[in-house]
């Protein structure tokens, strides 16, 4: 009984051997084992030792054979590897970005429990919290294990050497605990540090620690000067820690004074909470709705329409547009890979058919079908692994370009080819090898010996049908890519042609953020601006220069409610305006036209009525058809009088609608009021090379205040270009993908027709011998490619329309069925078909009847 059990088990274990080996020797091995009464253990041991060795023997044999066959067809091998490398590199590179931006969890413990918490008003889903609402929400909720907040800020830091402008985050005492992170050295900020009057403390990022302190661990306890205020360094975060974005390099506690809890409209906190165990996002949202409702009833005036919005931190970090941009790119990369696979399947299929004689000979010599399939799959795997390796190298080269698609996340900057991305590449490579290798192998080895018949030709009607289907797929996919690329390119051009409302060429910009309380007095700031601006205007080539709170397109916030005739208008998108303090030269420097009234001037001082220059849309909205000059409105705490109207500019960038603009004279800014709006953006209009101006400008600023750092040096054109940079990068990549797809489809058509011509040349010869004209032969060949192109275009147009609808929000108002794009793409597709058909058609014309028939 026991013996039969062992034999059954042994037979089952034989399946670990290759099928061909088992078929050959399985019975005999069983016979030997039966005679020798082998024990179960030794049977297992024997098989585990030998089966891998047999697999390895066969693999080595197949590899040797593959190396020989591939080296005999170097052209095919090179094309196959290159095609695969392109497909795999496209997907690997795009995946490295998609993974980083959309998939990979944030680098905090149980990061799937972290949520962001926002205030909402009609029209705005993501509004920061006011400190007092934060305090109440934190106190009243039961759904969060803990609830912290942070806001970003920048400050001048003087540590060792030159003054520097850095980004930092001001955080609540519990924020590090909410995130669940520990410092590398020292301690992080605790609730004790966050009390009003506690000593000022600072935690450094690894990068800042290295840069400003040379990585000296003795920095703990040392004092650091932040905007003139001393802070004690208490800890260093590890290099992987970034919060709330990549830019923040230092963290300090809020230390809210009591006055911070007075104004429920002063919103600047980004709420971050950790869900209590067992609480779902929906439950948290439901409770926050209740709390917001309760507060609405308590403070109907301030919170009349304020709600709460809770979302997973991971999802909130990426805008819907970025998400769609990346998804479109991933789809395009996948299309390229599919086309590459289809192409290779076709190439291998053609080769397998041509090699039918060889395969039939091997079958006749006793090679089983499994052995042959295994051999062919080894061949395709060798190709795909070579293509994959080359693809990973190409992806590494492409990453710097793709880096611009990564928004600022709480993760480190550039995407990289780490273990995760490499595993993806390996998986993709193996899948690819199987996808394009197995089907042709199975079909080619459909074991019959007809391949051995004298004069038998490769190929037949049924198989040509399959090959045509593959080509059809290629044409369709490449048209989808081509149309998508066309639509996105069209949209990009449309956005880039939007008039920003100012002239960006010939303007150098930089930032000098004046530290408080050193520059709390308006007179002191004014002296600085006046000295810097007059010295810069005196430089050769400079026509004008000015200061503004925030440069256009660099800061989308700074939006205030408008109060007209004593009535505060709903603080939704439609009734708010952007607030900027400027110096008099701003409009002329940016060439923003003054339409009526006057510019802001040096005589707009604090002893004069509060003046405002508004944009045209502001004037039109509140005083349509009337003269807006001399009208009053309350804005940012004070009553303002309109003295001039200027053209609108795109504050929020070319793609988004911007609120109307209100410009206030810098000289009328109150001491210690609206400190965040203190002008820091310097704009200089000059002729010639703007960069050459920079040393002189730096010297002027240094002379005005040796402790004042200069940061963010850019031309205004660069700022405008950056606004569409992610889109421009995406379009460039998709256009490259589409070109690649077109090329691959062309190669596919060329391959198919060449094959048709070579297999049908005897038929053509007979036709020529019977009096057919070259035109007839050409017609036969071209009809095949025209049919494929026609069918591909019909299918492709339908699919492309669906794809266009899916990415409609990326199209900047362009119709996803834009006729001109579709027509151009279809024409390109036909051209590609024609180009692919050219060489095989010419060959068909040259078929020599005698030679072709002799081989029959």
């Amino acid at each position, binding site marked *: 009984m026991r013996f039969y059990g062992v034999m059954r088990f042994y037979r089952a274990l034989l399946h670990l051997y290759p099928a061909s080996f088992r078929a*050959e020797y399985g019975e*005999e091995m069983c016979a*030997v084992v039966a005679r020798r009464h*082998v024990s179960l253990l030794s049977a297992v041991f024997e098989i585990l030792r*030998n089966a891998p060795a*047999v697999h390895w023997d066969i693999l080595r044999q197949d590899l040797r054979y593959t190396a020989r066959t591939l080296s*005999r067809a170097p052209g095919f091998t090179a094309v196959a590897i290159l095609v695969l490398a392109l497909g795999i590199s496209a997907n690997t590179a795009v995946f490295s970005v998609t993974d980083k931006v959309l998939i990979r969890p944030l680098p905090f413990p149980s990061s799937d429990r972290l949520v962001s918490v926002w205030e909402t008003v009609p029209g705005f889903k993501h509004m920061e919290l006011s400190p007092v609402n934060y305090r109440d929400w934190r106190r009243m909720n039961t759904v969060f294990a803990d609830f912290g907040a942070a806001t970003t800020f920048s400050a001048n830091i003087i540590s060792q050497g030159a003054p520097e402008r850095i980004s930092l985050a001001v955080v609540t005492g519990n924020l590090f605990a909410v995130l669940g992170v520990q410092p590398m050295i020292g301690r992080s900020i605790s609730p004790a540090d966050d009390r009003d009057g506690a000593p000022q403390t600072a935690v450094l990022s690894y990068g800042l620690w290295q840069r400003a302190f040379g990585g000296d661990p003795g920095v703990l306890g040392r004092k650091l000067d932040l905007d003139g205020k001393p802070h004690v360094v208490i800890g260093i975060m590890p290099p992987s820690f970034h919060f709330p974005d990549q830019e923040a390099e230092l963290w300090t506690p809020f230390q809210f004074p009591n006055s911070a809890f007075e104004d429920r409209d002063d919103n600047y906190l980004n709420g971050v909470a950790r869900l209590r165990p067992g609480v779902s996002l929906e439950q948290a949202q439901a409770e926050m709705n209740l709390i917001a409702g309760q507060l609405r009833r308590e403070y109907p005036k301030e919170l009349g329409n304020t709600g709460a919005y809770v979302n997973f931190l991971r999802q909130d970090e990426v805008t819907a547009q970025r998400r769609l941009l990346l998804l479109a790119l991933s789809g395009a990369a996948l299309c390229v890979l599919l086309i590459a696979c289809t192409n290779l399947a076709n190439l291998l299929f053609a080769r397998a058919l041509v090699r039918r004689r060889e395969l039939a000979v091997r079958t006749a010599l006793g090679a089983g079908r499994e052995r042959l399939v295994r051999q062919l799959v080894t061949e395709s795997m060798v190709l795909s692994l070579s293509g994959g390796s080359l693809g990973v190298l190409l992806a590494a080269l492409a990453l710097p370009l793709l880096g611009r698609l990564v928004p600022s996340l709480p993760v480190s900057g550039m995407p990289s080819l780490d273990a995760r991305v490499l595993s993806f590449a390996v998986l993709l490579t193996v899948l690819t090898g199987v996808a394009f290798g197995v089907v042709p192998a199975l079909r080619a080895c459909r074991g019959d010996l007809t391949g051995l018949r004298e004069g038998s030709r490769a190929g037949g009607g049924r198989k040509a049908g399959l090959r045509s289907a593959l080509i059809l797929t290629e044409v369709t996919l490449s048209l989808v890519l081509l149309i998508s690329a066309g639509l996105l390119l069209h949209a990009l051009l449309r956005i880039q042609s939007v008039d920003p409302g100012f002239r960006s060429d010939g303007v150098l910009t930089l930032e000098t953020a004046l530290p408080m309380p050193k520059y709390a007095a308006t007179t002191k700031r004014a002296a600085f601006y006046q000295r810097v601006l007059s010295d810069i205007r005196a430089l050769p080539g400079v026509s004008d220069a000015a200061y503004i709170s925030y440069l256009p397109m660099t800061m989308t916030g700074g939006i205030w409610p408008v109060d007209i005739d004593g009535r505060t208008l709903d603080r939704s998108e439609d009734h708010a305006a952007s607030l900027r303090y400027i110096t008099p030269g701003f409009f002329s420097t940016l060439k923003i036209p003054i339409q009526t009234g006057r510019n802001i001037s040096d005589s707009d001082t604090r002893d004069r009525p509060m003046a405002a220059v508004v944009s045209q849309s502001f004037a039109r909205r509140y005083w349509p058809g009337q003269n807006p000059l001399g009208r009053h409105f309350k804005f940012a705490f004070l009553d303002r009088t309109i003295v001039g109207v200027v053209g609108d500019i795109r504050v929020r960038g070319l793609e988004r609608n911007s609120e109307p603009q209100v410009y206030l004279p810098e000289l009328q800014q109150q001491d210690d009021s609206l400190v965040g709006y203190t002008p820091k953006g310097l704009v200089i209009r000059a002729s010639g090379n703007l960069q050459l101006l920079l040393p002189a400008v730096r010297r002027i600023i240094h002379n005005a205040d040796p402790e004042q750092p200069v940061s963010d040096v850019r031309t205004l054109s660069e700022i405008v270009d950056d606004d569409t940079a992610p889109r421009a990068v995406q379009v460039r990549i998709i256009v490259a993908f589409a070109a690649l797809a077109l090329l691959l489809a062309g190669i596919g058509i060329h391959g198919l027709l060449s094959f048709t011509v070579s297999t049908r040349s005897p038929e053509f010869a007979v036709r020529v011998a019977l009096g057919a004209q070259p035109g007839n032969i050409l017609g036969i060949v071209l009809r095949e490619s025209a049919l494929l192109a026609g069918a591909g275009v019909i299918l492709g147009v339908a699919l492309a329309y669906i794809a266009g609808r899916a990415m409609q929000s990326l199209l900047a108002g362009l119709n996803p069925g834009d006729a001109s794009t579709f027509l151009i793409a279809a024409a390109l597709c036909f051209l590609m078909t024609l180009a692919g058909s050219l060489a095989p058609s010419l060959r068909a014309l040259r078929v020599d009847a005698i030679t072709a028939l002799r081989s029959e």
Partner: protein
Amino acid sequence: MAQKSPQPEEFLPLPAATFHILMAVAEEDRHGYAIIQDVATRTGGELKLSAGTLYRSIQRMLDQGLIIETVERPDPEFDDERRRYYRITPFGTSVAKAEATRLAKLVKWARTMGFAPQKA
């Protein structure tokens, strides 16, 4: 494309199992189980080839051209249908000879160092 025919030296040193199998099929054509028995007898039971090792070696030796499967079979009454018989090829013989020479040289050198007993 003509391939260079392999030289016996390329296969040296020969795995022990391969050498024993070559010796077993040098005397007469043998089937698998007979090879195992022959090896066991010759080595006084010291080497008992497992079925896996045997057939894996046989497959490799067939590929390398050291042995062939014979077409002739013994009398049907002594024969089992399942059995295949193997015979050494001339190339197999020269590989076995080359291995024996290599081993003999090795023993000779070992002897001069006093690692092996002197010839009687």
